[in-house]
């Protein structure tokens, strides 16, 4: 029942830089960017990103060491499934990294409730999980760890996360954790996700956004400016919280929830932060970035500026990861609808019994 089905190791057929439209030239549905005539911006070099993640995952030990962020976010994300009182038949984990979501689903007692002895792991509410990612090394890194036995899991290597090879109305839920910040054409991907969901099925995702790593971004800008007289992109541009609502709505999702959560990690120095990012496979992959590593002079300057501008009193350097969590539901005729604005009949203070609102 719980034997994970592994696809045989086949050589990659698809050249990485072939535009996705050439791979899937039969288009069963129109994507947002083409249907509305918006140009699809290319921001990230997906091939570089692929190589960075393969390389990172091939160093298994180091890659596991820096899973703290992905594991924490996967846990916070799967917690949100507790609020949905249903059983999920087939769930897709899009951009699965090292199957961090699968691992989080198998954690015992996800909902500590003092009145009950313990609650079953979330995996019991998922019949089958498909973990899809473009990096084979990353995806299969933890394929022989014990958690694989506790959940029905298939790993699937995608040619590119930007094009989903699934039929419409396939999944009872789509999850995605810390992957969508490398997607070039977010509107297109979101409408594809909407397409593969069954009616009235949720899409729950967490992505890095907004002010993530603003400390590193600003200090590198200052050091670039002072050392070299110009600024180069070292930290990715990220989607903003206020954009996500609009994007989800445009893709056809209903009953949206978008919220943010900051995770601040303290590092001993800026080099430790950059090394960890690299080991996570999250190095810079912006198109048109400077080739090669950052100059040593700039790194040297950056360390001083980072510490002066953002450093903690105890000598550590904080790095902010701003996570955007989003939930959207695929439209369905018999779905619960929000009531019209101003139609409330009960004062909420009567129910909650609070005092005067100041």
């Amino acid at each position, binding site marked *: 029942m719980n034997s994970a089905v592994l696809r045989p190791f086949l050589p990659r057929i698809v050249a990485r830089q072939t535009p996705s439209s050439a791979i899937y030239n039969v288009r069963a549905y129109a994507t947002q960017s083409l249907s509305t005539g918006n140009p699809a911006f290319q921001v990230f070099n997906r091939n570089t990103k692929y190589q960075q993640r393969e390389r990172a995952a091939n160093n298994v030990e180091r890659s596991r060491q820096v899973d703290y962020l992905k594991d924490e976010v996967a846990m916070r994300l799967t917690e949100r499934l507790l609020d949905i009182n249903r059983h999920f038949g087939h769930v897709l984990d899009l951009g699965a990294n090292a199957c961090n979501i699968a691992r989080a689903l198998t954690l015992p007692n996800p909902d500590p409730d003092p009145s009950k002895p313990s609650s079953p792991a979330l995996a019991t509410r998922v019949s089958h999980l498909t973990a899809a990612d473009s990096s084979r090394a990353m995806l299969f890194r933890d394929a022989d760890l014990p958690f694989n036995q506790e959940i029905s899991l298939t790993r699937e290597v995608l040619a590119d996360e930007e094009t989903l090879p699934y039929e419409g109305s396939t999944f009872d839920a789509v999850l995605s954790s810390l992957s969508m910040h490398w997607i070039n054409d977010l509107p297109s991907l979101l409408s594809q996700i909407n397409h593969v969901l069954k009616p009235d099925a949720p899409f729950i995702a967490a992505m890095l956004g907004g002010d993530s790593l603003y400390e590193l971004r600003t200090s590198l800008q200052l050091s670039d*400016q*002072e050392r070299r*007289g110009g600024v180069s992109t070292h930290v990715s541009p990220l989607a903003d919280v206020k954009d996500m609502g609009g994007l989800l709505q445009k893709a056809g999702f209903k009953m949206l929830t978008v919220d943010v959560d900051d995770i601040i990690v303290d590092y001993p120095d800026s080099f430790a932060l*950059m*090394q960890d990012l690299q080991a996570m496979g999250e190095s810079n992959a912006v198109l048109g970035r400077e080739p090669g590593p950052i100059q*040593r002079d700039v790194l040297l*300057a950056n*360390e001083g500026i980072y510490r002066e*501008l953002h450093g903690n009193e105890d000598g550590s350097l904080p790095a902010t990861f701003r996570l955007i969590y989003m939930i959207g539901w695929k439209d369905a005729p018999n779905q619960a609808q929000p009531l019209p604005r101003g139609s409330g009949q009960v004062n909420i203070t009567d129910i909650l019994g609070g005092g005067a609102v100041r």
Partner: protein
Amino acid sequence: MPSRTKPIEKFAQAVAKCSVESSAYGKCIVADYNSVHKDKCLTEFLRLKDCYMAAAKRKS
């Protein structure tokens, strides 16, 4: 494999020995970070770099 120190770690160790110079350089930049131009804090940076070069040499 872990016995081999990566270049970036060597670099970090050497830079850590220059916290005074590094902080002086940082202060110079942060004092007026809205008008940073090339070589604004050149003296401070050269002092930092000298210290780093010395520290890097001492190590190896």
